[in-house]
């Protein structure tokens, strides 16, 4: 791909992230609750609150506060957690790593299952296997994560003789088996809806490809069915599959909030719910920005992969 295309996409991502910083700052400015009261406690006198506001710089115009906050962000300084009195980067750092482990496990599992299933059902279109799988996929896209998670817990983690732990986290550095044991249920709850959605989209893309003229031409040329599918249909439906997966990452990032809460997974989602309850503004800001950044960057990455896979988009 051309360097100009890459540069333009990179600039677009930077612009999106800058707009996100404005949105996040604006949202947290109107959140109820006052940082000075958060620090001093509920029984602070108005004088103490006013003094603390001056110390924190909360009495200055919003634009100045935004610029200072943005300047600090660019230097990697997210401020101090109001609740935990620790630097936000310390609090968010390990949670980010734990969330990334969960999200990456779910995403790999989803991709490995959904893409082949979608392609298979497209090739076997109209058979009983296709109808059965499509039905399951439809039901799967209609199950919110908290329902899937609850049902998985009932089936696999009922007390007595649980097959899998009902929650918690073991770092893979400590025990790989323990990590996988704990990640299966949350990743499953997170992945079901995405697997169903991606399989359906891949099936529909692959069906369009299979109905196209060049596939008919390949068949008329007398190519074997196997070669038509692996050599012609498959490479041409990969780019749309990547596009679907990258768009679903936004959904995945929303899903971790609920799933982490249910399975007591010490990640960004759980931290966010705690921070929202406590109005811990710097933590809320950092998490929102991080999730938006991951989403924007994953979209960028997918655009680049698609450009590499499909020569037609390179010089657009």
């Amino acid at each position, binding site marked *: 791909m051309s360097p100009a295309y890459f540069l333009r996409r990179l600039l677009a991502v930077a612009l*999106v992230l800058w*707009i996100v910083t404005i949105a996040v700052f604006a949202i947290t400015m109107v959140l109820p609750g006052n940082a000075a009261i958060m620090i001093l406690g509920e029984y602070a006198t108005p004088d103490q609150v006013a003094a603390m506001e001056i110390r924190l710089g909360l009495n200055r115009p919003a634009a100045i506060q935004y610029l200072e906050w943005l300047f600090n962000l660019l230097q990697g300084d997210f401020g101090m957690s109001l609740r935990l009195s620790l630097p936000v980067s310390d609090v968010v750092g390990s949670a980010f790593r734990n969330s990334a482990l969960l999200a990456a496990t779910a995403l790999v599992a989803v991709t490995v299952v959904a893409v082949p299933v979608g392609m298979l059902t497209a090739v076997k279109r109209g058979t009983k296997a296709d109808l059965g799988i499509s039905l399951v996929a*439809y039901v799967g*896209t*209609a*199950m919110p994560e908290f329902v899937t998670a609850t*049902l998985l817990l009932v089936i696999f983690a009922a007390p007595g003789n649980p097959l899998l732990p009902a929650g918690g986290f073991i770092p893979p550095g400590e025990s790989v088996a323990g990590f996988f044991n704990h990640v299966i249920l949350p990743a499953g709850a997170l992945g079901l809806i995405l697997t169903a959605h991606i399989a359906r989209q891949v099936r529909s893309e692959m069906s369009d490809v299979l109905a196209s003229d060049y596939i008919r031409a390949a068949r008329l040329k007398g190519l074997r069915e196997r070669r038509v599918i692996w050599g012609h249909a498959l490479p041409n439906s990969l780019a749309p599959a990547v596009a679907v997966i990258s768009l679903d990452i936004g959904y995945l990032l929303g899903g971790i*909030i*609920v799933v982490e809460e249910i399975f007591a997974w010490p990640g960004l989602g759980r931290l966010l719910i705690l921070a929202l309850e406590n109005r811990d503004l710097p933590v809320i800001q950092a998490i*929102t920005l991080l999730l938006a950044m991951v989403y924007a960057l994953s979209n960028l990455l997918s655009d680049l992969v698609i450009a590499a896979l499909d020569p037609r988009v390179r010089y657009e």
Partner: protein
Amino acid sequence: MNELVRHPTGLVGSVLLSLVAIAVILGPFLAPFDPQAFHPAVRLAGPSGTHWLGTDQFGRDILSRLLTGAGPTVLFGVGATALGVLAGSIIGVTAAVAGGWVDSVIMRTLDGLLAVPDLLFTLLIVTILGGGIGEAMLAVAVAFTPGMARIARSSVLSIRTREYVLAAIARDESRAYIIVQEVIPNAIGPIVVEATIRVSFAIMIGATLGFLGLGAQPPSTEWGLMVAEARQYMYRSPWVVAVPGLAIAVAALGFNLFGDALRDAFDPRRRR
């Protein structure tokens, strides 16, 4: 309409939606018991002749709670989507019609907002507004607005250069006439399709907010809240969480299937 029910997806979707509609409209009248009445003798009882879907931790009849909960659960999704579509369409049409820097500023802002996952966006807004079913509905509507605005804009842009619009311009019709009479009726198809599918997401997000305690509040029989309240008893009596959980899936599935069938009916290329 024939086109809609000929497909299996359209048929199943229509049937599910009819069931959901009956539950929403007639649910409170069909409920065999008072959804809030305690029956301490039959706490957490399984399905039986008297209580078809069993009872919850207070001995309340689950079928009755399900039927009265259809309204708050489903109307939440419809209301939130309708508000989001309305706001999004106004913004999207404005951007498309205005063009130039107005369009650029609106679109870049929407790009930024779209980078925040829907559920996260909704949680932030609910925290600003305070929990409750009305606040949650407004929050989902706000979170849906950027996506709907983009669809409305691209829909209008693709129509603006069609022959019938050019013909209207050539006839020297007024700007308002062209927008109201030519552009909007033709742009509405994709918007309706997207809105129908989004209702299923709105129902799911609404139930999730109820589950997290940020949406419907007790003693509402909203289905997400029903799952949340019954969770501590789920290992002993799985049906108390399974029944409302599956009901959410059925309602969401109905809108999803119906939306897909609508899209196929609007788009002749996809009729197979």
